[in-house]
């Protein structure tokens, strides 16, 4: 639990007074949720750019039939890494970044429940990603698609090390996600400010809660199946070897039992972001709060009941396919409730069309289209035509880019002032939005048509004369618009960051939730006084019925010296622990025993040290108040 609740016993164990550190040192040792949140955002944005370069290469390759810009071998690595990167190292950690930064602020806490575990999650994610990307230089990247189906990923058909990088790199990253999910669940249950009852939680916190539940139950099947494959490939086990009685369907089922909830892990946090932004800019409470919470839970539950719809063509027969077709369609009901509630939130409101709102509206349009094609996909007999075709590729890009990513952009424009203390440029923001919105639709709408015209996914080239050329060219053209939009975003990011001085406004959007009650960027301890929450939309309620500021809920901390706040201490242990696994990972991949030993020693030594270390935390001096104005 949080170290700051521990009593002080011996004089010589009093917490250290926090001092200033060099930047690299502060990154390596930070346990501050905001610092880690920023690190998640930056690292995953870099991975996002790498995944984008891969996407660009794919579109160049497919611009004309019988193209040889990329070889088949290289193309297979590129599309595999594109999928893995975007799912595990771009969108998922981008959502983690916002969760990390925002959840403690939104529930009125000074940090997450387990700050060290939080740092550990980040470093595991980062080392897993670095490990996967190092495969490009160490004999080739994974090349069997992000599903990594067996037998094509088995030793017999794929003797290179790419697949081992997949199994072990993702294993390390996945461990970080599981640890992170526990951390968020405990944080949300235990660290809420007085008065912040569960049914007063902001919807972003609720979606973090449900997402964490999904991660907690969905990631272990992936870990298990990757372990099985690791045993097959490294130690000669036969879980998936048909000749020895193994079963490839074990992989497909375990993978999709993880894989479908994963889709909701990527979208639920964004539902939360949208549910924060719309009420703020429409100046109305979210419509149907209770229904929104329920819908999130129902989606989370149904997520575990639909996995076979990814493999209707696998031959499970009409009974199974009907059942999973029905459960898949059911998801449209709670999702529809959300969409209708969002529109109803706008109804009778006073909407301000800021860039963040534009992104949300773009999200609503594209996500609805993706939802529509999703219902079509659930019609299992028809799915036999869509399955593994570009129609599916169109569908998931609509929900993952048009849905998740647009929502994340909305979140970035919305929370950027809170995180950096600076506003993003709205004009560039609008260019950014429109270029990406148009570019996205020009790129991905033709995929629906390509799929119906008979183009399977994961082909490095296609024949002329099938009617595929034109739509592929339209799509490749769209990528250039999309890229232009992304460049505008990067320009906006750097211009806004380089603006001199903080704007010093706590609440630029006339916000509703707790994070807008404190300075931008917030001090390391977030709240000098833990706020007393008296209503849903806590700050808005104080603006409406109180004097516009939060009441103070905190009992005095008898142990803390005057003007100091007790916070968890910096530590190097999480990064060391993760680094040990990183080193050992290479040992396993290349069968170098001494490297395994060294890596695992580092990991277990750091683990033991953390277990037996008496950590008293540290004191942080309260900042002299910058003038916090609520109205902006």
């Amino acid at each position: 639990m949080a170290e700051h609740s521990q009593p002080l016993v011996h004089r010589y164990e009093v917490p250290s007074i926090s001092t200033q550190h060099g930047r690299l040192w502060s990154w390596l040792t930070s346990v501050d949720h905001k610092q880690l949140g920023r690190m998640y955002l930056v690292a995953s944005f870099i991975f996002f750019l790498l995944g984008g370069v891969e996407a660009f290469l794919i579109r160049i390759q497919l611009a004309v039939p019988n193209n040889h810009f990329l070889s088949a071998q290289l193309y297979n690595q590129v599309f595999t890494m594109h999928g893995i990167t975007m799912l595990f190292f771009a969108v998922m950690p981008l959502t983690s970044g916002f969760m990390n930064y925002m959840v403690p602020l939104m529930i009125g806490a000074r940090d997450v429940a387990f700050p060290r575990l939080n740092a550990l999650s980040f470093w595991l994610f980062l080392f897993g990603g670095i490990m996967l990307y190092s495969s490009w230089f160490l004999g080739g990247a994974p090349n069997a698609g992000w599903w990594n189906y067996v037998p094509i990923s088995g030793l017999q058909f794929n003797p290179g090390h790419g697949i081992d990088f997949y199994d072990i790199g993702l294993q390390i990253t996945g461990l970080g996600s599981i640890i992170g999910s526990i951390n968020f669940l405990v944080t949300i249950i235990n660290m809420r400010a007085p008065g912040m009852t569960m049914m007063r939680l902001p919807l972003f916190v609720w979606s973090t809660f449900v997402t964490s539940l999904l991660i907690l139950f969905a990631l272990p099947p992936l870990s298990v199946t990757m372990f099985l494959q690791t045993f097959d490939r490294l130690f000669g086990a036969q879980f998936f070897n048909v000749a020895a009685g193994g079963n490839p369907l074990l992989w497909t089922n375990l993978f999709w039992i993880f894989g479908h909830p994963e889709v909701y892990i990527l979208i639920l946090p964004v539902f939360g972001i949208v549910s924060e932004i719309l009420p703020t800019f429409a100046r109305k409470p979210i419509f149907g709060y209770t229904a929104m919470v329920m819908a999130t839970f129902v989606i989370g539950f149904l997520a575990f009941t639909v996995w076979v719809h990814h493999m209707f063509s696998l031959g499970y027969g009409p009974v199974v396919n009907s059942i999973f077709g029905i459960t898949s369609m059911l998801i449209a009901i709670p999702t529809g409730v959300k969409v209708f509630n969002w529109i109803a939130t706008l109804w009778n409101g006073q909407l301000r069309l800021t860039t963040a709102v534009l992104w949300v509206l773009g999200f609503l349009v594209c996500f609805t289209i993706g939802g529509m094609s999703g219902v079509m996909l659930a019609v299992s007999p028809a799915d036999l035509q869509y399955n593994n075709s570009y129609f599916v590729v169109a569908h998931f890009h609509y929900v993952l880019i048009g849905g998740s990513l647009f929502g994340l952009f909305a979140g970035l424009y919305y929370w950027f002032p809170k995180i950096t203390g600076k506003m993003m440029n709205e004009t560039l923001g609008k260019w950014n939005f429109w270029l990406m919105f148009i570019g996205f639709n020009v790129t991905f709408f033709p995929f629906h048509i390509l799929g119906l015209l008979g183009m399977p996914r994961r082909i490095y080239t296609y024949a002329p004369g099938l009617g595929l050329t034109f739509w592929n060219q339209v799509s490749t053209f769209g990528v250039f618009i999309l890229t232009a939009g992304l460049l505008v975003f990067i320009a906006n990011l750097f211009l806004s960051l380089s603006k001199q001085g903080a704007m010093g406004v706590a609440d630029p959007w006339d916000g509703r939730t707790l994070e807008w009650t404190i300075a931008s960027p917030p001090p390391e301890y977030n709240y000098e006084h833990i706020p007393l929450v008296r209503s849903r939309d806590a700050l808005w309620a104080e603006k409406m019925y109180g004097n516009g500021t939060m009441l103070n809920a905190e009992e005095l901390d008898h142990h803390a010296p005057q003007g100091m706040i007790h916070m968890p201490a910096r530590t190097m242990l999480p990064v060391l622990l993760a680094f040990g696994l990183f080193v050992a990972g290479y040992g396993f991949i290349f069968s170098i025993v001494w490297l395994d030993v060294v890596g695992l020693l580092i990991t277990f030594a750091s683990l033991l040290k953390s277990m037996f270390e008496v950590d008293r935390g540290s004191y942080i001096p309260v900042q002299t108040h910058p003038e916090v104005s609520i109205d902006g």
Partner: protein
Amino acid sequence: MLVSSKRRRGLVKRGALSLLIAVGLSGCGFDTTQSALNPAGTVAQIQARMITSSFWIMMVVSVVVFSALIVAIIRFRAKPGQKTLPPQTEGNNRIEFLWTVTPAIILALMMIGTINQSFVLGKIYPASQALQVDVTGHQFWWQFQYPSANITTANELHIPVGEKVELILTSADVMHSFWVPRLGGKTDLIPGRTNYMWIEASQPGIYHGQCAEFCGTGHADMRITVDAEPPARYAVWVQSMTHPVSVPPKSSTLAYQGYLDFASAGCESCHTIGGTNFAGAVGPNLTDLSDRLMIAANLIPNTLANREAWIHDPQAVKPGALMPNLHLPSNEVTAIATYLGTLK
């Protein structure tokens, strides 16, 4: 599914297609030789109908949702100088109930169609009701066996028009998926497992398809040709397959030389040719090869030059091909390619 009359079906189908076209630039050529919306068989017909009807249901829903969204964005904007707050509505049970139940009813209708058609498409026809063909997926080609006629062939599936054909699917190595969109949706070929799908061509023609489950380097080049023939012509094909002309007379020197080279170069250790004692079982069966339209799993036309190019360097034609490059001298390549062109 929900649309019953045949005329309406046709209209709906054309409507969906033209709408899709209208979204992009109209007026460009629209080739549908591999299109699921241009069905030429019973199964594909059922699926095209389901695709279009679910598409239109979704269009109706979209119109409702997007109209509401557009109205909300246009009507309920902040106006300069607005001092009062909007009504702080927190919800409305009646209207929320409405938009929970209405989608449920629409979906229930779609579920009925889904269940019905799942059982139609999922039916397995025994030999008494359908021609049985064993399909085996290989990296990166297809093997077709007709147990009733004792025929084994590769990459080009011959079927009689108007007759149900039960495909019995398995794989020799990794997972593949059999997909010929104009005849029907796909079913996977899985090692150690047997899958079934039926197709029925309603008009004669050549139908294209390709492997739809990622299977490795040659995945994109693992294509399918289905030749649906009127029963009489199909019977002729069966006749020629079961009575192959495979050993060239010594008078046609080059072809006969190729026949000898085929054995001496080692081709026979992998390939079978009916009517000879070449009986390898690793690569595609080459019986009656001159009748095939394409070679290399339907990648390039079956011409002498292409056969030479393929034998000379298979990986240059098709990356990842498992047929070894035997580095044969060009005169042997030409002889073998010529010989293969005589197989009837």
